[in-house]
Structures are given as structure tokens and as C-alpha cells.
């Protein structure tokens, strides 16, 4: 029998979608391993998810305090060794704050929180969430965030695009990119990015809320399946 891939899910104080990520990993056939922000141990995880929520209340700036949590030292060295790391929503914000991903996330252009199922276009296979997908595929996944507008300096944005670091974009159901479907008002409709090495990825949409057909669209399934496949290689 093959061991189930172990996916660590970090709980920071104020994390909200941590249980949901563990449940989604289990739904897809993996084992979700709860990790605690104050610990120095990834408990043998083969992949790590930083989940959604409002870590430490996000009163200062989203993710700005969580990046200093003890567990983040372990996540950083895990990533440096090539371990697959995925940040979802607040987890994406934390990875940007920690310098593990380029760019930053600021308030949605509407200045309002938005919870809605959106279409997301995969832009690369070179990320731990998209290994099993090809660029151009369109997935239905919900977003729920107040600060999901991706921004970067003009030079960084050029580099992000030139080096193919964009992992996901908001799009129309046919994959077309336009401002109407750019739900957060992100630069170039960016919904998620990866790092240079292709083992760290962050995205604002919530794949863990799109795996169970009883609850709605299932666009998160291929993403988590890709993560589990990547984790299995390490297991």
C-alpha cells in the first residue's frame, strides 16, 4: 500500500479555512496534518498549505505578522529545499509578505469584500498546484476576500510576466481576460503567482472550497490533486 501524501496545514491565530483545507486534502485522498504557528516542526509533511483567514486579525497589513511566526522559519527552509508550498488567500498574502512570492495584495478595487464563484485560467504547469494541468484551462473556484488586488512595481510586473510566474488569472467562462471579470482589480487580472523555482505558489481563489460536488463547483479538485501528486513524489 502506498502511504498517503501528508499535507501540512498551518493554523495561525485567526486562520479560518485551516480545517477546510484539511478536509479538502482528505477528500482528495491525502492526509491533512495540522501544524501550529508557534511550533518549529512540520511533522514530516510532504507539502504545506498556508490557509485562508485573517491571521492575527490582519489589523496591521495582511500577513505582516504571520510571516514572523516560528513555523514560518520551517516553511521557508522547506521551500528552499524544494518542498511544495501553496498559500491560499491569506496564505498567499503571507507568502508575499515573507518574500517567498513576488508582488503584494491590497484592498479590492471596489473597496468591498467579495464572496463569489469566479472563473480562473491556469497560466502555467510549473507550480505545485498546476502540475496536472495545462495553460489555458478554465476552472470554477470561489473567491472570498477583501484584500485580493495583486500589485507589483512596474519592473517586477514585467519580470513576473516575462518569466512566466503568473499561475492564475481571473477570466470569463471562455477564458477571455477582461476588466469585467477581474474581480479584485488585480494588475493584469492576476489571481495567483509562483516563485522562480516553481515549488511555491499563492492564489486568492479557494480551491479547498471547490472539491465537494455537494457544495458547488469542483474547480479545486485538479489543483489539490496536483499538489498531492507533487507531495507523493517526496513521500
Amino acid at each position, binding site marked *: 500500500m502506498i502511504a498517503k501524501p501528508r499535507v501540512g496545514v498551518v493554523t495561525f491565530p*485567526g486562520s479560518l479555512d485551516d480545517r477546510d483545507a484539511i478536509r479538502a486534502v482528505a477528500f482528495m485522498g491525502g492526509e491533512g496534518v495540522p501544524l501550529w504557528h508557534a511550533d518549529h516542526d512540520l511533522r514530516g509533511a510532504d507539502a504545506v498549505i498556508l490557509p485562508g483567514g485573517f491571521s492575527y486579525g490582519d489589523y496591521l497589513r495582511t500577513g505582516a505578522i504571520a510571516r514572523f511566526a516560528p513555523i514560518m522559519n520551517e516553511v521557508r527552509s522547506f521551500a528552499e529545499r524544494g518542498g511544495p508550498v501553496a498559500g491560499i488567500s491569506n496564505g498567499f498574502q503571507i507568502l508575499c509578505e515573507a518574500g517567498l512570492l513576488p508582488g503584494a495584495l491590497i484592498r479590492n478595487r471596489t473597496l468591498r469584500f467579495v464572496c463569489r464563484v469566479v472563473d480562473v485560467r491556469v497560466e502555467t504547469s510549473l507550480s505545485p498546484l498546476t502540475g496536472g494541468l495545462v495553460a489555458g484551462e478554465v476552472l470554477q473556484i470561489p473567491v472570498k476576500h477583501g484584500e485580493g488586488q495583486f500589485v507589483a512595481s512596474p519592473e517586477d510586473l514585467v519580470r513576473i510576466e516575462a518569466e512566466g510566474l503568473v499561475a492564475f488569472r481571473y477570466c470569463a467562462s471562455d477564458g477571455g481576460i477582461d476588466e469585467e471579470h477581474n474581480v479584485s482589480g488585480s494588475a493584469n487580472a492576476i489571481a495567483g503567482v509562483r516563485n522562480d523555482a516553481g515549488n511555491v505558489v499563492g492564489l486568492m481563489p479557494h480551491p479547498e472550497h471547490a472539491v465537494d460536488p*455537494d457544495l458547488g463547483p469542483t474547480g479545486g479538485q485538479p489543483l489539490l490533486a496536483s499538489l498531492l501528486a507533487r507531495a507523493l513524489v517526496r513521500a
Partner: protein
Amino acid sequence: MAPEPLHRALGLTDDEFERIRATLGRDPNRNELAMYGVMWSEHCSYKSSRIYLRELPAEGPSVLVGPGQDAGVVDVGDGLAVAFKMESHSHPSALEPYQGAATGVGGVVRDIVAMGARPIASLDPLMFGPLSEERNRRLFEGVVAGIGGYGNCIGVPTVGGEVKFAEPHSLNPTINVMCVGVAPVERLVTSTREVHEGSFLVLFGASTGRDGIGGVSVLASRTLEEGSEENHPSVQIGDPFAEKLLIEVSLELVARDLLEGLRDLGAAGITCAVSESAARAGLGVELDLDAVPLRAPDLEAFEILTSESQERMLAIVEPSKLDEVMEVCGRWGLASPVVGRLVAGGGLRVVMGGVTVADVPARSLADEGPEYDRPIAEPAWLTDLLEDDPTFTTVTAEPRDAFLAILSSPNVASKRWVFEQYDQLVQGGTVLGPGADAAVVRIEGTLKGLALSTDGKGRFGFLDPYLGAAHAVAEAARNVATVGATPLAITNCLNFGNPERSEVMWQLAGSIRGMADACRALETPVTGGDVSFYDESGTSAIWPTPVIGMLGLLPDHRFLVRPGFRPGHLVYVLGETFPELGGSEFAEVVLGKVTGRPPALDLERERALQQLLVEAARSDLLASAHDCSDGGLAVTLAESAIAGEAGFAIALPGDLPWYATLFSESASRAVVSIAPEKTDLFEAAASAHGVPFARVGETGGPRMVFDTWFEVAVEDARVVYEGTIPRLLAGVSLSVA
């Protein structure tokens, strides 16, 4: 002019002051007076409503905890319990919409946690003045942002609630919040737990500040007048991050069986939590205010005693478990000082700086408040309104124009703009979110689905308080039955004007009778609720609005029925349509009238319809089902078409004029669609339940064809339906052609 005596400034009458003196056998000091002021306030003591609230049926086979504790609790089988509660935060929201609404969410969530249950869903029934006024837009936007800002940050999905608009709610928006939680029955923290002399009182969570001093007596138990902005310090400030920690700590303490009792610190702060805990245990308390962590060092005793600082809870802990409790709180970074101890006798003795600053019988605060039988009188102005029945008015509007005007009226139109600002998905249990007849949330690890609906019928209640309340119960139960769930029990929030006015008390008395009759007939006992009085300015009260929060159960959530049409099915209207336009959306929007008698309600017919809907859902006979209410059959049909992106062609039977057929708001009706091969079975079931039914047409195509009267493209209707609220907020006036 002599200064106002202190007791009056604290909201106590001269008679109440004398009563306190008699209880103590001496003059109360100012700390004690402040404690009585908050505990005997209308908000905490229910002194004007209690004699009526007793009429409500509170017993039922599934009720585990009825009124009187932090939340009602119902047994949903397999060892699981559901706690639910609704509260008002109207007054704070009128002054400071964001924080008022936010702390309303926080308060009711803590009520659920205090029962030992994990909060799994919130719903927010709201009423505002018309959005044509800038002030109302500001309140509306602020309240919605506050609910989202707090609710989204604590990881409890907001799955429903309704939003309505009416002029009488302009100065006094009605802001109610309902929260629902789940716990294993054996983990419930109810007042029947054994509490021991010598156990510690542990105050955990946020520190205590000057916010919300006397919120219940100054703010919630008086009308808001000009200049009430001075009451700003009485509005509390919320910290949802602290609340999230409080939830996790509380549930861990409960799961590890470390507590004898758990109380939320909400209205009346420490005084309420401590005095009620002591009174229930039949014990006294020694309370040490020096142990309470403070935000400002110079807080006086009466301020600490009555502060309504948010995100605090009180645990009763036996000495042997104290260390473990401290360890859990410490791991989550929460302060958890011991602030007192349960002692023999019934006294609540408060010490500060080594000096006794208050010493009163705990029961006198918690259980022995005043109770009033206030004068009631039917208002004279009602007669003319009732006689002006819009059902018999000459109607000059064109049918299509009337339809579009109603579909785009803010009451009827889509509330997507609101719901999208709420996290509907966190916890991964939301099977059916906002916008359907009822929300459905599954219980983790089971197939059970909880169906939840909140309903108020302000317009009906204004014209006939009895019928308004009865219709609200019937509609809430029907909404739950429409998705296929069996209605189990209700909570409620009674929103009314000044109880010192006889017409307001008449409205309350009628409403409670209506609620009681409907709850008895539909077998949905009342497990608790809240009363919000003084929702008026000058002598202009809000519409008397009991808001019902209904809990229903689907044994298997996969059998839930959604409202949207799919092509190729047959459309049925269930129930009978009568010429009943009194208090209808049609009368208000098309005729400009809120007059006439609300529709009649036959509770036996209502019950039969609901039983049919539930049985048909369990037998998988229904392709869609949608309750018929505001805007009548025309709106019900249009909403099903918009939700399913499928049109229809129907011919409605009967010889009523078009406007009565389309827009009458007769009770006990629903529109269902059924696959052709299931119609025989369905018709047999309907006949067996004695529910009148009519096959009126078919689903499919891009258009909605209403008999020979008019047709509208589904897409055009959707644009109108979804565009209303954003356009009103943008200050664009509506012109619907």
C-alpha cells in the same frame, strides 16, 4: 433646577428605586444602583414583555433548552444538538452602523459558544429606510460592511437573512442577527450542570474598558432622540480576532470537560454574567474587581461592573481544573484571571482595593426585576387604513409595467450586493447559500442538513399585528419546508416602539398571540429570543416586526430542493389565490398604499402544504420549489426562472383580474416544477394531503410568458432584478419601462 437624581439618570423609576431600597433595607450606593440600572433595564429584564412572552409555546419533543438561557437548543438526533438564537443590535447600529452591526454579530455568536456549541452559520435580517435618502444608504452600507467585517473574520459563514426597506425604519434601522451552532448533546453547557461552592470565576478574553458603559439602559432601553450622537461612548467596539480566539478557547475548554459553567459577557457585562451564574447555582459570589484586566487604569467600580466591552467570557471552574484552563487560555494568548469565587449564601459581594463596594442579593438582580402590565389600546388611526382596501381599487397600470416595477422594488430585488460581502463558505458546510427560500448547512460528518430562514412581515404587522406575526411564522416554516426540511423550532426578535405607549403594547400583545397560535399549529416551539423596544423617534415607531428565525431539519441534505427552473418540466401552483392585495408589494409599489387587511391565514392549510412539500422532497418528486410571498405568483415564477436561467409559459386559472392573479399575496402557496414522468405521483400526493393544485404551464425557453398578458426575456428580468440595489446605491434613480 435640581439635578436629576442618580437613579433616574441610570434609567430607574422612582418606584424601582424604592423597591431596591426595600430589598436592601438601606439606600443603595452608586455602584449598586448602577448594577440594578442595567439588570432591571428593559433590555435585560424584559419587564414590559414578560407577561406576554409566557404565552408562547416553549415545549416540544425536540426541545432540549427553552427560553431563559443564552440560546435555545434542539435535539436533531444521533446525539447532536443545535443551539440557535437571534438578537437585535438596532440602537447601536443607528448611531454607529459598522460597529453596531459588528458587535451584534459578536454578541450572538458568544451566546451560542456559551452553550458549548460551535457556531456554524449566521443570518442577518435587516430593515432600513428607503435608499433614496443618503442617510439610509450610509446606514445600509455601514451595517453590511460591519456584519462582513466581523463575521468574515471569525470564520462563521453568513448564509442568509433578508433585507427590507420601509420609511418607518429610516431613523431606526432594524438590525437583527441570528447564529446557529452544533454540539454533541453530552457537551452542552446548560444551567443544569452541577456548580459547586468554592469554584472559581475565570474571566477570559479581552480586557475591560470604558466602551459600552450602560449600553442596555441608556441606549437599548430608550428612544433615540436628536442629539443622541452624545451616546457614542455607549456603543461598543468589536475585535473579531479576539472573538475568534475566544471561540476556539471556549470550545477546547468544553471539549476537555473543564467547565462547570460558561457565560457570555454581553448586555450588562460582568454584573449580568456573575449575578445570573450565582442565582442559577443558588449560591453567592465574592467578586474582586482588582483582578479584572483593564484598558484604562482609572476605571471606577461601577464602570467595571457595567462595561460592555466585547469579546469576554466567564467560566466557572472547579479548583482542580484551574491549571488546565490557564494552560489552554495561555496557548491562545488570552488573559484568564480568576476574578471571583462561588460562596455559600446568595450574596453578590464586590471588592475593590480591599473595600466592599457593593453587596446585594444576586437573585434580586437576576430574577427579581420589576414586571409591568402596561396599558394597551388599539390605535384609532388603524381603522381608516384597514377600510382603504387596495384589492378594490381601480388599477390603471399596464400588467408588464406593474410586474417590472415590483420585480425591481428594493424589497423584492436581488440582495446579491449584500450577500457577496459575506463569507458564505467558510467551514465547508454551506449546501445552499443566501438567496434561496432557506439556507441549508450540513452538519460535518453526517448527511443531516439544517435549513434556516429568517422572516419578518413588517407591512402586514403594521396593519394587523396578530396576522403579521402569524404570517411571519408560517412563511418561515414554509421556506424551510420548501427546501425539503421539517420545521422544528423557532427563535425570534421582537422589534417594537416605545412600550410606554399603549398602541405599541397593543401591537406587541397581538403579535405575540399571533406568533403563539402559529407556532402551536405548526408545532414549532419558541426556544428563546430577544425584545428590542424603543425603536422609534418622536412618536414615529418602526413597523411592529417580530422577526422569526426558523430551524428545520433535512435528514439527508442531498434531497434538498432548489428554487431554480430547469427546462422541460411542468409548473404547478400549490394552494389557492384569493383577491388579497391588502398590505401587498403591489399595493405599495404600484398604488402607493400600505393599507387594507393582510391576507387571511388558515394554519391547517398551511400545515398541509408544508407536509406535502417535505414529503414530495423526500420522494424526490420536485425539480424545483419556491415559496410564494412578497410580490405574489408573478415574482415567485420570475425568481425561479432567473435562478435556473430557464423561462416558462403559463396560463393561470381562475377569474380574478390580472393584478389579483399575479400579485395577490394569499398565504400557503408555492410554485413547484416537476419532471413529466413524476406528475402522476405528485398529483396523488397533493390530493392525499388535501392541497389544492393547478398545472399552469411548462418551463423552458429564454422568455417568461405570463398568460396572454405579457412576456419578458429572463435575461432582461435578471438585469432588472439584480441591478436595483447597486443602482440605488450609486444614487441613480430607477426608471423601469
